[in-house]
């Protein structure tokens, strides 16, 4: 039961994190494409409670940044006027969850722009781009994992259930796919697909590629479960009563694979988010101006950005909580699987 509680804990953590990204329009102060051409590469603004006159403010505030004299890219805080943050403020127009029109934002400032994670070369807010980029990257991971698991389930079920030459053929093919270092395989397949396409097309393209590449491991796992499940007594009994193959698979055998599939999902999703990031980072995935976690970081490939604008690196760290959530979920799911196996084994000994 302790295992179940940790699973629930991780699920809630993940739900909160995904909720924030899902409602990116609300939590992000600006539109991800909105440019502020007068302030490129603005460093992150610091939140203050104490102003330059020594007064304590109840509400956190920021100072606007202005160019340091005689410099063209060094900014300093303009301490003349504190700009208090306003929570639940009205700002730019967006559609929550893609359909609810709204102007409410989690925070904003009056008569000033707030950049808590700085801005990029076009003066776009990095925080907003990070949140909206998460939508793209996480969706890619989720859909990709869905495709992989679907293929893995079908192939594994067919191989395990029908056995014989179908089984050996499919499993040889799976070994082939497992033999390749998967990032190379991903690249190779991406290599032979069109390069310059619209963002939406590119998005679906890479989901398909990522989803197709990884089918082999889940297929092998599902096959193993199906192999053992079809020899269970109740399945044999059902077959004896004249159950058809389709019915047996649907009703008795495939439900057994659910825990394997869940664990695989928790392992695959972060891996696929990473795959999307890698492809986009290298310019093979989702192209600008649509933000994704990968192409947010791609400006770091320029040496000048790396040297002068360290805050462009911050989005890389912001992703860690998501990966932590999935890692925790995967390991607690595995733990439960193990406990379950031991439990059933000892039960088997008793009867």
């Amino acid at each position, binding site marked *: 039961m302790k295992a179940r509680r940790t699973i629930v804990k991780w699920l809630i953590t993940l739900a909160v994190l995904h909720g924030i990204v899902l409602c990116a329009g609300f939590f992000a102060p600006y539109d991800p494409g909105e440019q502020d051409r007068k302030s490129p590469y603005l460093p992150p603004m610091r939140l203050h409670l104490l102003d330059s006159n020594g007064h304590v403010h109840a509400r956190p505030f920021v100072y606007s940044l202005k160019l340091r004299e005689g410099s063209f890219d060094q900014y300093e805080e303009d301490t003349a006027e504190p700009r208090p943050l306003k929570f639940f403020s009205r700002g730019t127009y967006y559609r929550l969850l893609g359909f609810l029109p709204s102007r409410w934002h989690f925070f904003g400032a009056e008569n000033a722009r707030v950049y808590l994670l700085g801005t990029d070369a076009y003066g776009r807010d990095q925080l907003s781009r990070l949140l909206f980029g998460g939508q793209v990257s996480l969706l890619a991971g989720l859909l990709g994992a869905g495709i992989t698991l679907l293929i893995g389930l079908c192939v594994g079920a067919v191989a395990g259930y029908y056995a014989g030459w179908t089984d050996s053929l499919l499993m040889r093919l799976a*070994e082939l796919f497992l033999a*390749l270092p*998967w990032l190379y395989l991903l*690249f190779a397949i991406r*290599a032979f697909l069109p390069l310059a396409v619209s963002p939406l097309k590119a998005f679906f393209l890479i989901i398909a590629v990522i989803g197709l590449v990884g089918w082999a491991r889940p297929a092998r796992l599902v096959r193993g479960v199906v192999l053992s499940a079809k020899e269970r007594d109740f399945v044999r009994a059902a077959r004896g009563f004249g159950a058809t193959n389709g019915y047996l698979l649907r009703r008795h055998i495939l439900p057994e694979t659910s825990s394997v599939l869940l664990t695989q999902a928790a392992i695959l999703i972060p891996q696929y988010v990473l795959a999307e990031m890698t492809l986009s980072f290298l310019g093979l995935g989702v192209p600008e101006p649509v933000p994704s976690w990968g192409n947010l970081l791609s400006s770091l490939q320029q040496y000048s950005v790396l040297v002068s604008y360290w805050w462009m*690196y911050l989005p*890389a760290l912001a*992703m860690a909580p998501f*990966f932590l959530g999935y890692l925790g979920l995967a390991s607690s799911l595995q733990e439960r699987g193990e406990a379950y196996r031991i439990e059933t084994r000892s039960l088997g000994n008793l009867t």
Partner: protein
Amino acid sequence: MRYLLRRLGHALFLLAGVSMLAFLFTSLAPGTYFDEMRLNPQIAPETVAALRAQYGVDKPLPVRYLSWLNSVLHGEMGFSFAYNSPVAPLLLVRARNTLVLTITSTLLAWAIALPLGIWSAERLGRLPDRLLSWGTAMLLVIPDLALALGLLVFAVRTGWFPTGGMASVDFETLSSLNRLRDLVLHMILPVTALVLSSLPLLIRHVRAAVADVLNAPFLLAAVGHGIPRRTLLYRHALPAAANPLISLFGFSIGVLLSGSLLIEVVMSWPGLGPLLLESILARDLYVVVGGVLFSTLFLVGGNFLADLLLYWADPRIRTEGSTQ
């Protein structure tokens, strides 16, 4: 011996399969290297057609595959359109650089993971073990890309390490000792990134495997005989725990290869990764196929090495061969 031959045959089968798969994908590709030439008004259509014929791009897939196989036998592995040279020499230099990187990191990662994993397994559930578990979890959570970029940012801001490439500009003029020093300095960043990215998984597996063995009756008996701790751990527990670890060794090479692809690009290490990326963008088909094949070769080689080690380490496998 039969066991090893079987594994070797398996490896060859895999390589052949991968090459066929790669060719199948090339045939699905929309567009070739010559498409851009066709758009260029300065190149006559006849020239493009002649080039296509020369490289055999217009022939059907099986013919292309066979002629490619033929060129593999001649040590060429096809022809690079962009570099205008056979692929194999091109890849060999890059593969050497990749190998330098991956072998060093593999050895280093294992050299760190083995003692740490054993140390942690010995203190299972106590404070140091739990601290280490947390540490590995934290490392596991940081993506390779973030790790590599973070190291780069760090190197750039401190200026302690060179931040790209494999050699300094004046490499040719240095004495051999200084050349080695230069190479090592350039390797520090990518190797650190690779080691850190593969370390958590290794430590966890070593810990689990050793902890499993430490509970075995024969070890309790050994403790009862008063065998000193160090001998106990390294002479008795480690060999018994070795089997899954050796398999993991083969697997870890594959993980490292995928990781190094990305890290090579980020840190501009002149290995297979950047070449592969370049040739993807240029649609230089044979280089892509060759690069993928080389990476598979490494992986299969790593697994074969693991099989050899397993054969050497585990008497059960040796006898299995002779009783058959």
